[in-house]
């Protein structure tokens, strides 16, 4: 059981690294759309990997803990991208200003073509 705990601990520190780097990107990036990539790093690499790591650490002694924690991770995997998609669609519809260096915006082009 020591092996599972060691693997879980290593994964947990990897998840913490991802969460901190994602938070740093949330501060550094210039507009909403680019910041959402950093938020994805935070919720996927940070939260899901940490939950899975803790599930491995606790599941060595207690299988029901493993199952419930994996269920929590599954719900985060389902809901996090959907919320991100909904909020970015709303931001694009309400014309939040994009960064000056944006390369292209096909969605706005198509909307203007349709009138």
């Amino acid at each position, binding site marked *: 059981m020591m092996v599972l705990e060691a693997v879980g601990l290593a994964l947990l520190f990897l998840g913490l690294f991802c969460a901190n780097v994602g938070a740093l990107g949330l501060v550094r990036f210039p507009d909403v759309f680019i910041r959402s990539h950093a938020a994805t790093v935070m919720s996927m690499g940070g939260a899901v990997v940490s939950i899975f790591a803790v599930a491995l650490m606790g599941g060595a002694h207690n299988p029901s803990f493993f199952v419930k924690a994996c269920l929590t991770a599954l*719900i985060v995997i*389902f809901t996090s991208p*959907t919320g991100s998609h909904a909020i970015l669609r709303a931001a694009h519809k309400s014309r939040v200003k994009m960064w000056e260096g944006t390369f292209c915006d096909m969605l706005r082009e198509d*909307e203007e073509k349709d009138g």
Partner: protein
Amino acid sequence: MKGRKPQEGMTLIVKTVSRILAPVMLLLSAYIVLHGHLTHGGGFQGGVLIACALVLLLLAFGVDYVEGKVSFSFGQVFRSLGATIILITALLGMAFGFWFFKNVGVYPYGFPGGIFSAGSLLLYNIGEMANVSASFLVAFYFLVKFRRRKR
């Protein structure tokens, strides 16, 4: 999709995910209500979670879809039913010769820590779940209709 009248509800992604998540939330609320005497939680929390599942469907599909499934008058009837169950549970204590709201064993007690170990508290939780969920839903319907008429 564009250039015509705006679609009812949100995009296909939100619709499909909420279609899968809302039944799971109903099952979780059943878990919370039925374990109300063993863990934190109970009738109120489970009822709020049922109302949240219906609000999720309301956000994703629009109010007409949800009103087709659970109508306004059905909500009122369900709410009254919950209140009636609470009243009957309260009177059961007097019927067994104790005071108002006394917890009595209307079914044989199981072993401690099981679901059937609480007496009439379980019935009370279920009645409160019905009352709270239907009340929240009716309140949301009221808010939505008031906003629509004003516009």
